[in-house]
């Protein structure tokens, strides 16, 4: 006997579990099928564990630098093992929390692999272990996995070659680490290990780290980390990995660098195989499932959200996409917008941005005005960042002065960037922004100060 559901969700990451929670809350009969732990990459091997570790690293950094603030912390040490086990505890707590939420909203969770059998008279037929499921609607949130490029010697991850998954399972601090790919994931791990004293080298194929973020700030960030001891090789294409040696071509010359461990963080690819997707004739686009602004695939009643769509690869995008699906299923006309999705690099200092960068504005021929201001214009920043520097940059439309993009380098930009998201979502112009009251003294005032620079 098969069981019937209004909505079946494959994948319990930020897209899947948020959609399940929202749909259950609205009274839909929901089943969530997850082969691993609830929470997906984000909770188990992404956002949460890395931020937990980065906080430990930041505390350590701050303790070492406490003297500048008149605090004498002697013989500051760290325990890598404790850091890792605390990370496990945090992850466990949050994963458990997701499970509780599922119960609270009457979502049935099946912990096994799902297999889509195809369309049936009543919707879509899915097998999950011994369970036969008939669902009126199907939401696919199978996420993404680390992409390991076909470079000789790289192959599947092993003791030396790691992805985000393996590196989080290390029990001992490596003496040296080579990071292939200077994107967000690469930079965050680099920052963590650099704080703890590992010799870190970043090999990036493009001519700057953190592509897609504001370039000027990316350069500033690279220079900050170069001072802290990270070695950067830009415009460097890895051609071979020989054991612990990474061979790359830079400006026509072949160079190499050796690391006890090698982290591959060149990108991620959507997971579209192994669960019967082919039985639905779902259309793919550049490796991901093709969806419209309501997250509908080309097959009626079949939706996709999160990394499996292959274009945003951010947990917060995934959750919102899941919500869009549920809203449309429950009678609220909702659509996904990608113009105000924040991006944050949780390095120390944090680097956050939302909306258009200057580079993108130029590329798209959008007439803009730009004002940038040193973070030092915010009193609170000076108070808390002895000797630190940072930048806030605001882009507005040339004609109407609407906020197009906001970029900040400095702590705690990750906590303030949402204000800029709202300004962009609401298409606020300078005039409206000027009337908003910011709490004083906070670093967020830098946003207001920059606005008054126009």
């Amino acid at each position, binding site marked *: 006997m098969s069981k019937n559901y209004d909505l079946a969700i494959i994948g319990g990451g930020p897209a899947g579990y948020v959609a399940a929670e929202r749909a259950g809350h609205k009274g839909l009969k929901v089943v969530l099928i997850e082969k691993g732990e609830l929470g997906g990459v984000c909770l188990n091997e992404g956002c949460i564990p890395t931020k937990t570790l980065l906080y430990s690293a930041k505390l350590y950094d701050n303790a070492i630098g406490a003297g500048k603030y008149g605090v004498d912390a002697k013989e500051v040490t760290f325990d890598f093992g404790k850091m890792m086990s605390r990370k496990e505890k945090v992850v466990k707590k949050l994963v458990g929390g997701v499970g509780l939420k599922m119960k609270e909203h009457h979502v049935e969770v099946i912990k096994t692999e799902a297999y889509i059998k195809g369309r049936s008279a009543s919707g879509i037929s899915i097998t999950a272990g011994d369970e036969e499921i008939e669902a009126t609607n199907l939401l696919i949130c199978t996420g993404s996995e680390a992409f390991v490029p076909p470079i000789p010697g790289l192959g599947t991850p092993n003791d030396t070659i790691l992805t985000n998954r393996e590196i989080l399972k290390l029990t001992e601090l490596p003496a040296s680490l080579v990071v292939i790919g200077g994107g967000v994931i690469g930079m965050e791990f680099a920052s963590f290990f650099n704080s703890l004293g590992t010799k870190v080298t970043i090999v990036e194929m493009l001519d700057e780290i953190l592509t897609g973020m504001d370039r000027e700030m990316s350069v500033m960030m690279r220079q900050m980390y170069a001072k802290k001891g990270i070695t950067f090789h830009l415009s460097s294409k890895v051609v071979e990995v020989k054991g612990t040696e990474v061979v790359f071509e830079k400006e026509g010359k072949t160079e190499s660098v050796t690391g006890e461990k090698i982290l591959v963080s060149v990108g991620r690819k959507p997971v579209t195989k192994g669960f019967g997707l082919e039985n639905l004739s779902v259309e793919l686009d550049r490796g991901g499932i093709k969806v419209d602004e309501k997250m509908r695939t080309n097959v009626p009643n079949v939706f996709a959200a999160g990394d499996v769509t292959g274009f945003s690869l951010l947990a917060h995008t995934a959750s919102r996409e899941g919500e869009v699906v549920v809203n449309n299923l429950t009678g609220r006309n909702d659509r996904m917008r990608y113009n105000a999705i924040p991006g944050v690099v949780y390095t120390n200092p944090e680097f956050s941005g939302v909306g258009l960068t200057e580079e993108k504005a130029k590329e798209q021929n959008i007439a803009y005005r730009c004002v940038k201001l040193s973070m030092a214009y915010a009193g609170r920043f000076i108070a808390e960042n002895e000797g630190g520097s940072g930048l806030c940059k605001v882009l507005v439309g040339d004609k109407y002065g609407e906020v197009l993009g906001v970029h900040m380098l400095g702590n705690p930009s990750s906590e303030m960037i949402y204000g800029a998201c709202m300004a962009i979502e609401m298409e*606020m*112009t300078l005039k409206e922004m000027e009337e908003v009251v910011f709490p004083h003294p906070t670093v967020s005032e830098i946003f207001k100060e920059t606005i008054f620079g126009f």
Partner: protein
Amino acid sequence: MATIVIMPKQGQSVESCILTEIPKKVGDKITKGELLFAYETDKASFEEFAPVDGVLLAFYYASGDEVTVLKEVCVIGEPGEQLSANQPAASVTSEKEIIVMPVKDEKAVVVTSALPTEIVPGVSCFISPRAKILAAREGVDIASLRGTGPNGRIIEQDILAYLTSKPKITPLARKKADEEQLCTNCTGTGLGGSITSKDLKQVGTAEVTDEFEIKKLSNIRKLIAKAMLNSLQNSAQLTHHLSADARQLMSLRKVVKKAVDEGYKTNITLNDLICFAVIKALKRFPQVNTHFVDDSMKYFKKIHLGIAVDTDRGLMVPVIRNADDLSIQGLSNQMREIAAACKKGSINPELLASEAATFTVSNLGNYGVEMFTPVINLPQTAILGVNTIIPRPKELGDGVYGFVPHLGLSLTYNHQALDGGEATRFLKQIATEIENLTIEL
């Protein structure tokens, strides 16, 4: 003091009228009692005369526009008086009053003796009195609304629409809509369905949703729709199909082509030749060259041939008057000129009226159509559809069969006016004329 003239209500069921004539231009001097505009309902034509002396300050529509009854049509005022909401207009901020004065028959024309609201310089608040009262009562900030009435005037419907939907609009979208005169009556795709700058559209463009797009019909489309439905609903039409041996036609065309190559001026087309043959047949069948009106038949002494022309703006059927007087060259030249005028839009509207023609030819042969049932342009009695040329087996004598090109002919006629026998004989006559056509170059 400006006087606004509205579209009078002609009876209970009439919701809108079509403007048919506007003899004056904006800026023209108007004398009381002079014709201001002519308009028609689906049943009759009417004229509206100037209620006061003055200058025509504004006319919100063009001839052919459909105007909702009781909507403002034009404004008469003093020379130099300003009424645009965007211009400073201190001179028209006088006391508002609405005079309802009885004019002609029972119908009443509402004449407002001043612009219905004070105009604040730089603020768009050109608003109808009813809208203004409603807005005041409901506390609607009219400065933030964009009207859908003539010239962006806010009308009661706008206030009602605003009250029912209260669409949120982003500050940017608001500014952009005001500055670039864009329409905010659109689907919002922003936060909570708010209207963003990307959702704004040009005034008058289609309404687009996820599922469909609604486009207003053009005036010509409205007229065609009305005429076509009227024809099928108000006549007993049916179609006979027949074909004519096209060998003579094709050889004539060959002769013409050769002559044109050698410098002959008139490029007589197959369609010209067919129409020429049709005119000959019509001369023998006066009962087809008629209009069927109520309880009588109108027999025309001359043949006024209607020609269906496909244009970018829709189907047009201009008429060639006195076609029976024309030589094949004259007919050919007129056909070309009239089709070009239709395509350019410079055709005299009088030549487009279905009453102007006595018989119509619609040729779809060029497109490869093998058979169709043309719709009669009432009050005409019949219409000929011309189809493509197809080789058909034919006995060539002595039991020998061969393929002979045949031209398909489809005659739709109003069975109220003609009997099947007559119609068939007429159709056969056309075929005979085509098969035996001769021309002189």
